[in-house]
């Protein structure tokens, strides 16, 4: 198998030609992809050094599909999502790749065009719903602003649509909720309001960055059900970022496992749980099983590598119990295990 050099630390624009790695990919399901990310690279630039936090991500989302991105903190999950909607802040810079959305490369569109897409055709919700709502504005005020900006609705029409949206995300007495301020909402209600805001102009894609992490367990389940219902009713494609495998199991069709700015494994959700191929995925699942068994929080031994000194070869090799010489020198390429199951590991065939 072909080995791709670890990272383009030649600095500057790491925009590699869409190389053979892309051709290695499985053909996406029938060209109905809502979003297709190719070789996305992001760098954090500090005065004295820079760090590659996304080292070439390939990911696609089909129409009505829910894709989960799972990984530890700092693995690049949120950076991926923020890059899609063009909200990556300094010191983050996209240095290469393509993000295709409905025929346009989102990395090439201007700020105004991106703003027209954001919150309109691609929406995003965040981890801390109460802090994500402006404390000095009532729910109705923000909803009406969003409806005016994206749908041109004003006055009674906007209010009627706002009530409809709030009812649609399962809020009882939407008229009362319209007048409420964020501090008068529970976390679950606030996340429903955020989802209503995100749905205001019927987007094709919803990015949910840890949508349930800050919520109580029972509320988590309700929000998961809501997201699942939105997919069924509106065919809403979603990328759900989480470090919670339970959320993945409950909600997602397909999962990408991220580690140190790369995707190590990608497969339909049953495959990830039943037949994980990457030692990291196996470690995550084992740690979860041990946690359930002992009641103590377990983890994979070792630490996420310091991104400044990215190890050569496979990023997981320093922690991998199966790492061999080749793992420490060459970066593994994505290989197809099955048509929709890909893994980036030198030794997956031996370990299977």
């Amino acid at each position, binding site marked *: 198998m072909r080995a791709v050099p670890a990272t383009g630390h030649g600095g500057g624009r790491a925009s590699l030609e869409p190389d053979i790695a892309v051709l290695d990919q499985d053909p996406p399901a029938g060209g109905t992809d809502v979003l297709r990310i190719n070789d996305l690279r992001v760098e954090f630039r500090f005065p004295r050094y820079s760090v590659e936090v996304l080292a070439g991500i390939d990911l696609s989302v089909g129409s009505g599909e829910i894709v989960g991105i799972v990984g530890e903190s700092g693995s690049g999950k949120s950076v991926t999502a923020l890059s899609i909607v063009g909200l990556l802040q300094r010191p983050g810079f996209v240095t290469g790749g393509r993000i295709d959305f409905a025929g346009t490369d989102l990395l090439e569109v201007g700020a105004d065009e991106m703003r027209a897409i954001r*919150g309109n055709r691609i929406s995003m919700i*965040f981890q801390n719903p109460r802090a994500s709502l*402006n404390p*000095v*504005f009532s729910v109705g005020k923000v909803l009406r*602003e*969003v409806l005016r*900006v994206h749908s041109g609705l004003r006055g009674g029409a906007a209010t009627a649509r706002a009530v409809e949206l709030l009812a649609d995300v399962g809020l009882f007495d939407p008229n009362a909720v319209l007048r409420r301020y964020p501090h008068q909402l529970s976390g679950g209600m606030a996340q429903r309001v955020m989802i209503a805001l995100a749905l205001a102009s019927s987007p094709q894609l919803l990015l949910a960055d840890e949508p349930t992490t800050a919520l109580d367990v029972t509320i988590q389940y309700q929000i998961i059900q809501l997201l699942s219902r939105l997919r069924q009713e509106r065919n809403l494609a979603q990328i759900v970022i989480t470090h919670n495998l339970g959320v993945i199991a409950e909600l997602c069709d397909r999962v990408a496992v991220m580690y140190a700015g790369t995707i190590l494994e990608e497969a339909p959700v049953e495959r990830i749980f039943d037949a994980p191929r990457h030692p990291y995925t196996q470690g995550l699942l084992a740690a979860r099983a041990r946690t359930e068994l002992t009641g103590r929080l377990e983890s994979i031994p070792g630490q996420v590598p310091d991104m400044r000194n990215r190890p050569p070869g496979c990023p997981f090799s320093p922690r991998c119990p199966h790492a061999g010489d080749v793992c420490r020198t060459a970066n593994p390429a994505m290989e197809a295990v099955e048509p929709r199951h890909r893994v980036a590991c030198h030794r997956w065939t031996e370990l299977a």
Partner: protein
Amino acid sequence: MIAFITRRLLLLVPVLLGVTVVTFTLTRIIPGNPIDLMVSPLASAETRERIAENAGLNDPLWVQYFRYIGGVTRGDFGDSFVTDQPVLADLTSRFMPTFELTLFAMLLAVILAVPLGIASAVWRGTWIDHVSRLLAVFGVAMPVFWVSLVAIYVFFFLLNWLPAPQGRIGVIITPPATITGLYTVDALLTGDWKALRSSVQSIVLPASVLAFAAMAPLARMTRASMIEALDADYTRAARALGLSERSVVFRHALRNAILPVITMIAIVYGYLLGGVVLVENVFAWPGLGRYVYNAIASSDYPALQGFILYSTTAYVLLFLLVDILYVILDPRVRI
């Protein structure tokens, strides 16, 4: 709301009582004997004794205190030793000049400092941020009386753009008919262009000097709270909803960031009332600052006590106003 305001106004009573105790004691402790002021240096010991007796200065302190409080409750703050006028009348006649000066100073400071603070938060680390920081350092570091003198030297002596320190209006100009008590506003309302020109020329320098000092903390506070608001989750969420950058900065972020700035404006206004003592003296401004300066210099107990009560009341009312504004602007403090 009414109940809230009433409660706060009732709270004014114990605050003012406390202030009277402190000021009454302090004015008696600091050195200086008011008798020296009231009588000729050549007066006999008997005369001095008689005058002290008449003024009640020989009574025990607590008797003096209760006599004073009794008067205050009837609106009698005593008579000034220096002007021989009732203190309340003195203060009232000097209030408007000071109010006019500080009002214009504050308006100028807010109009300049808030946009500057916003700009240095939005473009942090750029030249505009550095210029704003430099201005703030100068505003804080340079003594206001010195800035006053430099300003007079430059704008009157060197450039001759503005008149010499002449108080509120040129000496040969008749003040406008009183409507509000603010010369500039009254001149405008009565269409008295000569008075308007002269009063504006007179107020420009002292108001600018005060504004320069007041700008520094306002600009820094605006910058700090604006940066916090721009980095907040709700700002990121507003951007994610595709709202325009103008709406994100001026509606979503600023609406939150302005709250601490309002408190700062009130604090700075209080600080300005201190700075005004020096500025009024340099610019011959016939306001409270000069009055209290003279009262201190001459151990004028009733005038001093009256002024402190007066300014305490003004300060408490100012903060009541801030709290009412908070209730209007911040839904979280609504009762």
